[in-house]
């Protein structure tokens, strides 16, 4: 039976991170398709507080005619809360960074990542369908035991912001003296491997052009890794060429894209990689280490490297910035590739995924007939743990409540609330000594995807 309402649940909610923007676009789509739809979260940033409801206000009983979409990118008590309810669940899986990549640098994030993987497995039996951002992510779903899955990219609006004139002017003034500008956008985190980009920069400045600069846009995950990057750059004598602006808003980010010669990625783990698409859309040639979902996202729109040694990255970036034919090709091919991820196409993909989910039926494990859904055929039914119906106690608090060790927005690799900042003081970051960034620097673009 077609549900009247499809609500979304996310551990923490902010407008200006990848998952937050995706959730808002998805809500618009759900409403457009005739469903009623609310966004529920455990903690929300001020700018979206009026657009969501806190799980503490969630009524305990079964809400007939309601389905859930749960956005899973890290471990959170709300996953357990949702698993204890009776309504059908669609898991929207945004990828979880492997804990091994985080443990030495951000142990608490590694803990929540491991909890997220455990919850991914627990929800496999409890959910009726799952959607992955990429085929790479879908493999995680299948490995965790999901039977009905589909792939639909995250919803985001390319080119929504015009470049900030002041930033653009400043960046152009910096370029007046010559030298190429390399750009990478993403959270400063060990799995993003910004340290490898600094190594490559050192090679490029020594062997090609001493005026080469590197811009690393994004907030830090924890404090150790960003500090190590700064010290490393200083030790190599390239600190004046490494720009770490932190989180920036959409207009400033657009200016960074507009003034970049090449987008370079050495990231070892990407579940999708929205900055790769943004760079391609902006006509910035992409050079990326071929890992995880990077190849799937970039397609033929960029140069993918099997080797991410500093020399290989430096040679590739130098080749791209000095070969006009290649630049022209990559700008054109990148834009073609980015066109595959427009908001309109994303909405179509999501509409198809929702059609599959609804055709699959409400039973956990996807027992009913699935139209075009991947996975096992009908009849491979599972038990219905939702019949338990009990709601775990103590999880329904608002920001900072609920007795969790980690407050909302402080949940490791989950971008909702990690990346977007701007006056979120009431969130429980203070538990671990995190300070919200100043207002106005309110966007870390697409950190965890």
């Amino acid at each position, binding site marked *: 039976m077609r549900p009247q309402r499809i609500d979304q649940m996310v551990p923490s909610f902010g407008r200006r991170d990848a998952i937050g923007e995706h959730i808002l676009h998805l809500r618009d789509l759900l409403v457009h398709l005739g469903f009623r739809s609310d966004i529920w979260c455990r903690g929300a940033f001020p700018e979206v507080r009026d657009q969501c409801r806190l799980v503490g206000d969630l009524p305990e009983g079964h809400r007939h005619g309601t389905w859930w979409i749960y956005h899973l990118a890290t471990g959170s008590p709300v996953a357990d809360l949702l698993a204890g309810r009776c309504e059908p669940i669609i898991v929207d899986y945004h990828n979880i960074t492997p804990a091994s990549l985080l*443990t*030495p640098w951000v142990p608490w994030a590694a803990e929540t990542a491991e909890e997220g993987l455990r919850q991914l497995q627990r929800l496999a039996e409890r959910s009726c369908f799952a959607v992955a951002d990429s085929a790479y992510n879908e493999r995680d779903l299948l490995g965790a035991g999901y039977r009905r899955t589909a792939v639909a990219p995250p919803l985001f609006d390319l080119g929504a912001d015009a470049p900030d004139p002041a930033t653009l002017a400043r960046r152009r003034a910096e370029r007046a003296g010559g030298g*190429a500008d390399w750009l990478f956008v993403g959270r400063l985190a060990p799995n993003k491997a910004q340290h490898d980009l600094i190594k490559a920069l050192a090679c490029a400045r020594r*062997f090609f052009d001493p005026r080469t600069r590197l811009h690393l846009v994004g907030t830090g995950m924890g404090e150790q890794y960003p500090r190590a990057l700064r010290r*490393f750059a200083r030790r190599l004598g390239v600190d004046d060429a490494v720009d770490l602006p932190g989180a920036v808003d959409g207009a400033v980010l657009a200016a960074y894209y507009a003034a970049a010669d090449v987008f370079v990625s050495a990231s070892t783990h990407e579940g999708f990689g929205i900055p790769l698409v943004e760079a391609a859309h902006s006509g910035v040639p992409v050079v990326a280490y071929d890992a995880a979902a990077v190849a799937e996202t970039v397609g033929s729109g960029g140069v993918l490297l099997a080797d991410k040694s500093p020399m290989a990255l430096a040679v590739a970036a130098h080749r791209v910035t000095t*070969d006009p034919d290649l630049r022209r*090709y990559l700008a054109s091919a990148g834009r073609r590739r980015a066109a595959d991820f427009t908001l309109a196409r994303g909405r179509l993909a999501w509409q198809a995924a929702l059609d599959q989910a609804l055709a699959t039926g409400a039973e956990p494990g996807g027992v009913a007939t699935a139209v075009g859904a991947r996975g096992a055929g009908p009849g491979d039914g599972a038990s219905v743990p939702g019949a338990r119906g009990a709601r775990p106690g103590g999880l329904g608090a608002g920001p900072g409540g609920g007795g969790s060790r980690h407050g909302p927005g402080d949940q490791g690799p989950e971008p909702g609330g990690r990346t977007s900042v701007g006056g979120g003081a009431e969130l429980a970051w203070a538990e671990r000594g995190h300070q919200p960034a100043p207002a106005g620097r309110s966007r870390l673009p697409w950190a965890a995807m």
Partner: protein
Amino acid sequence: MTSQTGEAPSGDPRSSSGPVPPGSQPPEAAEVGEAAQAAGGSEVSGEPVEDDQAYLDRVRREIDDEVRRRRAAGDFPPSFERKLDELFARYTPTGEADDYFAEALKLADRAAFFDIDVPTGSRREVRGLVKWSLWQAEAWFVRYIVDQLNHFSAALMRTVHLLDERLADVEHDVALLAPGALPAEDELAPPADPGAYTEQVLARLRSGPGGRVLHGECGDGRLVEALGAAGVGIYGIDPGTAAADVAAARGLDVRRDDTAGHLAALVDAVLGGLVLSGVIDRCAAAQRHRLVQLAELKLAPGATLAVVSTPPAAWEAAAGPLAADLAQGRPWHPQTWAAVLASTGFADVETHADDSVGVVLATKPVPVR
């Protein structure tokens, strides 16, 4: 976003012959090329046009070739990349993940090899010839030195790997010694109640030098209450059982702490007396010895140590089979405590015991001047 200038690679792919890349035509031609591609066409202006993937594969191969060529020519010395890795490793946290030691070991392995193949290539032929000639002239000497260095570093790394293996064995054995899932603390037997022997304990404490008396793992605090009522300056600690909370709520000076940690934090020879109970019945033998050593250290000369233990049979009956089997240790008989305290140097060892409790009293000797 103009392209940047810089030293062109020796094998500048701009000069490489080959098919025209799909996007390399002039703008008007590019439109035609894209349209042709979309239509499945493969030729523009008489030149073959590669498909996207073939072109990108060729670019990637050319990049790989250039890296190899420059490395072989000595432009990209391996030592430079190695130095970058080592420098960043200095800023990397260590010791927080098991596999991090393995990574550090791999880094050390790579750094322990001295390369004897000196790069002699050069973009200028004459310079390359000079380099090669110098190398030929000095090779016998350099090789002699580097061979010895490599032998030394190989032996050193071999030793490190052997130590790693031995350490792994030790860690494995220690892990086997560790107990499995212990029952919750509150499910263990409560500390023995020395009620019947409170007078004896009080008498020994009063004979001491005075000063604060500590009851380690005091449970519900009934001994603290009794001794306090008798005028002894006493406080208790407990690792957080519900009983201790009750004691604190009753106004007794009971704090949450574990016995060994609390003792270790005290100034030496500060205690006028010490009562140990609870943990001493279930901790491992090494921990008991550690507690006795700490007691000897923290007691003032002439002060009394009272060990309040539960006889093994009574303890097992109270704890139940699960807690008894999974506890790190089993209670000692009072006679065993007496022997251990005597051998540690305590004097005037006195034992009181019945079926439910054993109390061993001992005094830290006053040094003879």
